């Protein structure tokens, strides 16, 4: 039997130490700092973006977005998983990461428009437009909606000339084979202006009516939400992940993640989300295994910062 060589803890030198004093001092310092910094810096208190705000600020964009949802050409309609199977989505090499997640939150883009409108009562014109839409074949519906979005067109931007009516709904030719699409889109605009669109979209999610998925999808398919974000420097190509509204500090620790989105090839890639995630996972693995990687593990020898930390101990050790 080997002899136990662990020394008795009572043999070590001891010092008096007041743990309660340290705890109280730390609590007082953190409380004073928290209250003081909150008083000086406050916190961002940005008003929520609403459908009503969108409808009033940019009604043409809301009508165009509604028609595009009916045509199935919006970002969410062509997104793929988890909303639909319209695209493979983000891939890491041959691995279809986004598709592997499956369609867990099925959303029919046309339903973002037709769903809320179906709940409106006492509007014979709208009821007729809805009946007209439902009676048509899917091909006819797409033809109508596409003809209307093409007719609205887009304003001139980035050196591109204006298309269609330049994005102005009021200038669209009255007849052009749009079917009930103008009536449906305009009715959605009216519902949004009246403030009833959020409730109609969120009430269908879960029991408590707190599921914002559908209202956020509709909002993000339009230009209003992105314009607001870009104006606040929150865009993906503005290092937006790091930023907060106004002058409040944001999330500076996200610098490396958002950095990759600013440089090629990621800044011009449609697959940037998967690529940046893959790169960050690779860098995380490198960090985890630094002690085993030749070269990387020698950096402390070349740049001996730890000697600064241990300088006092080293001096004492040398004296002994």
């Amino acid at each position, binding site marked *: 039997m080997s002899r136990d060589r662990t020394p008795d803890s009572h043999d070590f*030198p*001891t*010092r*008096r130490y007041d743990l309660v004093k340290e705890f109280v001092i730390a609590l007082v310092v953190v409380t004073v700092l928290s209250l003081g910094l*909150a*008083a*000086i*810096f*406050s*916190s*961002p*208190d940005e008003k929520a973006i609403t459908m009503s705000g969108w409808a009033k600020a940019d009604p043409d964009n809301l009508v165009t977005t509604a028609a595009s949802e009916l045509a199935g050409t919006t970002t969410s309609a062509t997104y793929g998983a988890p909303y639909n199977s319209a695209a493979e989505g983000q891939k890491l090499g041959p691995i279809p990461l986004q598709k592997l997640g499956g369609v867990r939150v099925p959303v029919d883009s046309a339903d973002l428009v037709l769903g809320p409108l179906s709940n409106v009562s006492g509007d014979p014109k709208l009821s007729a437009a809805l009946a007209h839409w439902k009676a048509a074949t899917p091909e006819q519906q797409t033809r109508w909606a596409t003809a209307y979005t093409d007719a609205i067109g887009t304003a001139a931007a980035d050196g591109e000339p204006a298309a269609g009516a330049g994005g102005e709904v009021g200038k669209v030719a009255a007849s052009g084979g749009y079917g009930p699409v103008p009536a449906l889109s305009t009715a959605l605009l009216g519902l949004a202006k009246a403030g009833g669109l959020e409730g109609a979209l969120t009430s269908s999610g879960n029991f408590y009516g707190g599921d914002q998925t559908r209202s956020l999808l509709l909002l993000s398919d339009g230009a209003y939400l992105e314009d607001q974000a870009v104006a*606040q*420097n929150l865009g993906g190509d*503005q*290092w937006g992940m*790091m*930023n*907060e*509204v*106004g*002058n*409040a*500090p*944001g999330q*500076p620790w996200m610098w490396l993640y958002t950095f990759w989105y*600013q*440089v090629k090839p990621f800044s011009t890639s449609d697959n940037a989300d998967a690529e940046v995630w893959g790169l960050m996972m690779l860098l995380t693995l490198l960090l985890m295994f630094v002690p085993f990687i030749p070269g990387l593990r020698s950096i402390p020898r070349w740049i001996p*910062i730890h000697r*600064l*930390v241990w300088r*006092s101990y080293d001096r*004492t050790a040398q004296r002994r």
Partner: protein
Amino acid sequence: MSALSIVAEGPGKYIHWGVIQISVANAIIIAVMVLLFILALVVPFPTHDDQADEGHSR
């Protein structure tokens, strides 16, 4: 607290330098973090020897 606020109000101030775009608030936070790191390295900490007279050893 908003009456006392000196930061959250108004449009954000940003520094643009090539591909780098950073808010002044974030730049200050990062500068303070770097400063604290350097101070933690160079400021001498009390050692066991400094406190020997306070303690009891046997």
